[in-house]
């Protein structure tokens, strides 16, 4: 059996492989050693074709008795794979599913650990990762002294998806799984909204910077005047000021309009996940260090109300 050096844990939902899986493969190839993808599913063979991309040396097919993700089963399976094969790195997505079990695996086995990692490299045999701190205003270089094995949760869309075909060997791996203590029962769809922000050419997007609910109508009017569709960041939906269908980001909609004009949005990673591929991003924020300026094409350090007032006169 080859010593597998880097593990990727595939993610799937309702019978579809999730795109982050192939991004993890690209990341895995940046580390030395063969790459194995673990597919944990009721029927792993449904996904082995999709993960057999260039750079994958082995597919570990792990059959479990649950159609959908259950964290106890993933944890047990990954733990056993890690103990049997002793990979030096285990890569999972920084996703809601992984959040449910990956830190438990790391804590249980005493692995090195870092989450929301957006860059990795080998530095003389040791793995070095990069992640952000202090609300994404500062980056940090992380290492794992004394750890032979590390589990890293990688930020989605930070690596391009791996392509091509690998001709990987498929190994059936039997694991013993405990009774699941957190059981999937059902899915509830997001309610459709009055508009589909994902098809708009021009989004005027407002965030917590607008302050009060009373200020919202003014931006609804401004959007209409400018010929834009109004979208929002999560705190506006959390506060109940706008329906979920207007929310841009990881737990809302992914959008890529021609123009995304962001007013009073800081640029948290989960917001950026939903809009960073927009054609032109313009951001207005009173904080010159706001993370949104890292992805914006044009930025203005200004009070959003003053700018909005002027836009109101021009359109």
């Amino acid at each position, binding site marked *: 059996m080859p010593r597998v050096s880097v593990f990727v844990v595939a993610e799937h939902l309702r019978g579809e492989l999730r795109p982050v899986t192939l991004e993890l493969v690209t990341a895995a190839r940046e580390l030395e050693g063969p790459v194995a993808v673990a597919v944990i599913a009721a029927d792993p063979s449904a996904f082995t074709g999709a993960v057999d991309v260039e750079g994958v040396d082995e597919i570990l097919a792990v059959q479990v008795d649950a159609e959908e993700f259950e964290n106890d089963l993933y944890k047990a399976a990954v733990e056993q794979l890690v103990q049997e094969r002793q990979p030096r790195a285990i890569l999972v997505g920084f996703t809601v599913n992984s959040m449910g079990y990956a*830190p438990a695996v790391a*804590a249980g086995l005493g692995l090195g650990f870092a*989450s929301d990692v957006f860059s990795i490299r080998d530095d003389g045999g040791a793995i070095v990762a990069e992640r952000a*701190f202090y*609300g994404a205003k500062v980056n940090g270089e992380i290492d794992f002294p004394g750890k032979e094995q590390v589990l890293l949760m990688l930020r989605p869309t930070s690596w391009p998806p791996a392509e091509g075909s690998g001709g990987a060997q498929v190994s059936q791996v039997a694991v013993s799984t405990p009774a699941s203590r957190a059981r999937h*029962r059902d899915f509830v769809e997001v309610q459709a909204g009055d508009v589909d922000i994902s098809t708009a050419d021009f989004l005027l997007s407002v965030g917590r910077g607008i302050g009060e609910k009373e200020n919202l109508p003014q931006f609804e009017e401004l959007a209409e005047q400018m010929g834009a569709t109004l979208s929002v960041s999560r705190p506006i939906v959390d506060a109940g000021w706008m329906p979920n269908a207007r929310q841009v980001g990881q737990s809302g909609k992914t959008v890529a309009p021609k123009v995304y004009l962001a007013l009073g949005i800081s640029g948290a990673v989960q917001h950026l996940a939903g809009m960073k591929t927009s054609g032109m991003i313009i951001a207005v924020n009173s904080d*010159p260090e706001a993370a949104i300026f890292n992805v914006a*094409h044009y930025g*203005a350090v200004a009070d959003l109300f003053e700018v909005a007032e002027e836009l109101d006169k021009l359109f």
Partner: protein
Amino acid sequence: MKVVVCVKQIAQLGDEVEFTEDERDVDPDFVDFALNEWDSYATEEALQLVERAGDGEVVVVSVGDEDSEDALRRALAMGAERGIRVWGEGLAGADPITVARALAEVVRAESADLVLCGVQSSDSVQAATGVALAELLGLPRVAVVTKVSLGEGTATVHRELEGGLLDVVEVDTPCVLTIQTGINEPRYATLRAIKQAEQKPIEVREPGDLGEPASRVRRMFVPPKGEGAEMLDGSPSEIAARIKELVEERLK
């Protein structure tokens, strides 16, 4: 019913930053502190669950130095009964697994019916401490929860996936849940409640064995601006005029 909530005092950077001499962290003079947003939702959820149960208490636990007691006081002002602060060597700038180890002993000793954490801390975005804690306590867990209904020996919760899709999960209790924003409307603490909270007890504890850190920060730095944004300077009316030009050019 007893609910334990883990709360963190988070550090917010203004528009200026300097680093400590060893470059492994930000100079504390450059940060402001606040109760982590996610933890105020977790505290509110705990209070509501106890109120609905008719009796019980909410205990808040935080790993932090003396200055971080403000976060505990906030949660106490919202209505939590008492606080526990854990602090000792090896906890400054600790990784989430080390923080979970520091929490574990204290939380275990409370034998709570439910343990709530936030999904993530807004300053370090690990989204890891609660689930690591569950493992150390041997409890079931569900991460990113937007609804909790307690039953007999189980709870039915909504787990919010990417795109907003909800996964309805039945979880055995006691368990650890990590609470997502928007699950409720956190109450404001009245001035009176804030005053009263000053009288509520906060016990200080040393952590047990923290083991080896799961990671180490080698250095921190301000991200290179890269291509970054082209900045539009001038008065609000000049900025607005440039935005209009850019938008019209792009949508042509």
